[in-house]
C-alpha cells in the first residue's frame, strides 16, 4: 500500500490503479460492523433498495407492506457508531401509499428530486421527494413486477415496466402515457434493465426462460434472444433458445455495460458479453437503425450452483470501480460474492435471519446494503485494519534478548 502511494506520488503509476486496488481490498473485507446500523422502519419484508447515483447519500427502500422509506446514509456525527436514520417515509397513513407490496423503487437518475415506485397494486407512481406527493400515476392491467429507467439516457425519459402480462410497456414521463409496447415474451416479465452504455438498449427477463435485448427505436421485434447454448444446438426450433432452464429472475448489467449477468430458477448464473460495441449506423440510408450490439453470447464462466427459489424477481448487484468486479447475489439467507469474470466464489455474507431479497452497492465507500424478509436492512462495511492480536507475549518472552531485559526488580524491599 505504501508502495502504491509512493508510486502514485512520483508519477510512476496511474492514480486509478491505486484507487482500484484499494477498492478491491475494501470489497474483499466486507463484513457486518457493530458500529453501523440502519434504522428499522419496515413492518414487512424489504423488497427493493436503491441508492441515488448522484451523491450516493440517500437510499430508498420499498417493502411488502407498501411502505417506502428514505434513509440518509451519510455519517455526519463525529462518532464511529452511526445509525442510518430515516429522513422521511411514505407510511400506511399517507393518502397515496401503495395498496399492496412495493416491488421496485428507483431514484430519478439525474437528481434526487423525484423517484418512481411500482407495486403489486398495478400502478407505477412517480413521487416528488420534497413534498412526498405523487406527481403522476400509471395504471396497468396486471401486477407490476419490475420497472427501470435508463441511468445514462438524456434523450428520452422512458420507464420500462415489466408486468404479469407478456408485454413490456414503456411509459414516457414527459407525456405521462405509455408510449411503446414491446412484444415477444410469452409469460410474465420478471426483470427489466436498461444498458448503462447505450441509451436505447433494454434487456428484459421473463418467466418463459428467455432474455431479450431490445433496441427501442426499432419498430420490429427484439434484437437478440439470449441462447444458453450459444446458438450451437437447436437452431431448427427457434422456441428452444432459452437463456436458462427455468424462469429468469434477475438481470444486471456490469457497470461498463459490456457484460450482462442473468440469474435463473435453474440455480445458475450466466454471464453474457457482446462481441463489439461499435455503432454500425449506416450512413445515407433511410431504413431503420442497425443494432448497436450485433451479437451477444455467453461467456464461459461457471459460477456453480446459485440457489434461487424466488417466485418474483431477484435483485442482485455488481460492484463498481474495483480491479476485478464482484457480483453480490442473494443466496437464501446469505449473500454470495463471486468474481464476475472468473466465477470464483469469494465468500458468503451471513447475517440475515430470513431470505435476502435485494442488495445494493454503494461504490463511493464500497459498502453493501441488503434487505431481507426479516424486515432488516443490513449494512456491510469494509473491515478496518485488524488490530494485531497480542497472544504471542507468552511465547516470545522466553526469546527476549537478555540485553533488553530490564534489571529492575519488581519488589520494593529488595531495591
Amino acid at each position, binding site marked *: *500500500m*505504501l*508502495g*502504491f502511494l509512493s508510486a502514485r506520488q512520483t508519477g510512476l503509476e496511474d492514480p486509478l490503479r491505486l484507487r*482500484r*486496488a484499494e477498492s*478491491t*481490498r475494501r470489497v*474483499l*473485507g466486507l463484513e457486518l460492523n457493530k458500529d453501523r446500523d440502519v434504522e428499522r422502519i419496515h413492518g414487512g419484508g424489504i423488497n427493493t433498495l436503491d441508492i441515488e447515483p448522484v451523491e450516493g447519500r440517500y437510499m430508498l427502500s420499498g417493502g411488502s407492506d407498501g411502505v417506502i422509506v428514505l434513509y440518509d446514509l451519510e455519517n455526519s456525527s463525529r462518532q464511529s457508531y452511526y445509525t442510518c436514520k430515516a429522513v422521511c417515509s411514505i407510511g400506511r397513513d399517507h393518502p397515496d401509499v401503495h395498496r399492496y407490496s412495493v416491488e421496485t423503487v428507483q431514484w430519478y437518475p439525474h437528481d434526487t428530486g423525484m423517484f418512481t415506485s411500482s407495486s403489486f397494486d398495478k400502478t407505477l407512481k412517480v413521487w416528488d421527494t420534497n413534498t412526498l406527493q405523487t406527481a403522476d400515476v400509471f395504471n396497468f392491467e396486471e401486477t407490476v413486477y419490475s420497472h427501470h429507467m435508463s441511468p445514462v439516457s438524456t434523450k428520452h425519459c422512458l420507464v420500462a415496466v415489466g408486468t404479469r402480462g407478456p408485454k413490456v410497456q414503456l411509459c414516457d414521463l414527459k407525456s405521462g402515457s405509455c408510449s411503446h409496447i414491446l412484444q415477444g415474451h410469452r409469460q410474465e416479465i420478471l426483470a427489466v434493465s436498461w444498458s448503462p452504455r447505450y441509451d436505447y438498449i433494454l434487456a428484459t427477463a421473463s418467466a418463459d426462460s428467455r432474455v431479450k435485448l431490445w433496441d427501442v427505436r426499432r419498430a420490429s421485434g427484439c434484437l437478440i434472444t439470449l441462447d444458453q447454448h450459444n446458438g*450451437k*444446438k*437447436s*437452431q*431448427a*426450433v427457434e422456441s*428452444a433458445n432459452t437463456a436458462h*432452464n427455468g424462469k429468469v429472475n434477475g438481470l444486471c448489467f456490469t457497470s461498463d455495460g459490456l457484460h450482462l449477468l442473468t440469474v435463473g430458477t*435453474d440455480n445458475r448464473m450466466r454471464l453474457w458479453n457482446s462481441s463489439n460495441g461499435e455503432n454500425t449506423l449506416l450512413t445515407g440510408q433511410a431504413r431503420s437503425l442497425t443494432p448497436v450490439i450485433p451479437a451477444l453470447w455467453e461467456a*464461459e*464462466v*461457471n*459460477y*456453480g*450452483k446459485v*440457489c434461487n*427459489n424466488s417466485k418474483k424477481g431477484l435483485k442482485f448487484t455488481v460492484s463498481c470501480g474495483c*480491479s*476485478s468486479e464482484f457480483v453480490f447475489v442473494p443466496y*437464501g439467507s446469505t449473500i454470495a460474492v463471486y*468474481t464476475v469474470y*472468473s*466465477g*470464483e466464489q*469469494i*465468500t*458468503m455474507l451471513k447475517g440475515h435471519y430470513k431470505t435476502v431479497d435485494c442488495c445494493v452497492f454503494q461504490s463511493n465507500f464500497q459498502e453493501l446494503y441488503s434487505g431481507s424478509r426479516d424486515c432488516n436492512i443490513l449494512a456491510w462495511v469494509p473491515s478496518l*485494519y*485488524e488490530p*494485531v*492480536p*497480542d*497472544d*504471542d*507475549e507468552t*511465547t*516470545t*518472552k522466553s*526469546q*527476549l*534478548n537478555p540485553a*533488553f531485559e530490564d534489571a529492575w526488580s519488581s519488589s520494593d524491599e529488595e531495591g
Partner: protein
Amino acid sequence: MQKWFSAFDDAIIQRQWRANPSRGGGGVSFTKEVDTNVATGAPPRRQRVPGRACPWREPIRGRRGARPGGGDAGGTPGETVRHCSAPEDPIFRFSSLHSYPFPGTIKSRDMSWKRHHLIPETFGVKRRRKRGPVESDPLRGEPGSARAAVSELMQLFPRGLFEDALPPIVLRSQVYSLVPDRTVADRQLKELQEQGEIRIVQLGFDLDAHGIIFTEDYRTRVLKACDGRPYAGAVQKFLASVLPACGDLSFQQDQMTQTFGFRDSEITHLVNAGVLTVRDAGSWWLAVPGAGRFIKYFVKGRQAVLGMVRKAKYRELLLSELLGRRAPVVVRLGLTYHVHDLIGAQLVDCISTTSGTLLRLPET
C-alpha cells in the same frame, strides 16, 4: 492425483486413529514444523491462523524490523526479506492437507484465505514463496489437470458391470469435484473436446448432466456393438465422417443431410443403432448405444447415496464413514463414483472438519 487417493487413505487412516490416537499424524507433523522454525533462530513469528494473516502487510512490518513482542529490535536486514516465511508454510501445508481430499471444501479459514489471496494480486506484489507449497499440489489447477481428473475417474468406472460393451463414462460434475475452479475445468474440457480427445454426451435425465467419454473408447465400442447388423454401414460412415468433423453434442437436420450427405434412411439406421437420440423435430443428440442401463443404475445409485446422507442423524455424514459403509444393492457403480458426482454437482456441501471431510445436505 496421487494425493487424492492418499487422501482417501487418510480418511481410512483417520478411522483407525480414533481407535489408536498415539500414532503419528497430521497433528504431530504440525508441531514438528513449528519446532524447526524456532530452532533456526528466526525471529519468532506467531503461529497465526492463515485466515487472519494480512499478507500485504508483511513487507511493511518486515521493513520496520520492530516486531511487537519480538526481542530483536535491531532486526537483521536479511530477515526483513522473508516476507511470507516459514511460519505460514506449515499452517498452509496443514490446512491444505485437510482440504486435499475434496478441494471444494467450505471452510471459513479457506474462505478468508481466498479473500486475502486476491489482495496481493491487486497490489501487484507477487507472493510466490507463500504459494509455493500450495501450487505444487496437482489438485490446485495445473494446466493438464482436467485431463488427469478424467483419466483418474475413468478408473472408477466399473467396466465389468456392462461386460465391456459400454465405454467408461465420467460425468462433468465429477470433474468439478477434482478440479475446484469450475471455469478452468470447463475451459480445459472444451479444449479437450476441440482436440477430439473426448466426446461430451448428453445424458437424458438432466439437462446439465454431461457424460465424458474418450473418443477412442467410444469408437471401438460402437463398432463392436454394430458388428454384423444391418445398420453397420451407416454407423461406420457416421463415425468416419461426422465424429471427427463436428465436436458438438447435437446435430441438426440440414447439417446431416447437406454437410455430411446422410439420407433419411441412414439417419433412421443411426437412431436404431443407438448412436443418435431424437431431441426434437429435426435435431438429434449424440448418444452412446446401450447407455440406458448405465443411466438407470446411475440415477438409482445417486438417489441411494443421497438417501444414505439424508437418513443420517442431522443429515450429515463423514466421508470416511460413508465410504466405509456397505454399499446398498442399488448402488452398482460404486460409492466413490457417486460421491464424486454428488460433490461436484453441489448436491451435498463439503465441509472440512478436524475429523475429516463432512458431507452435509444443504438446507434448501
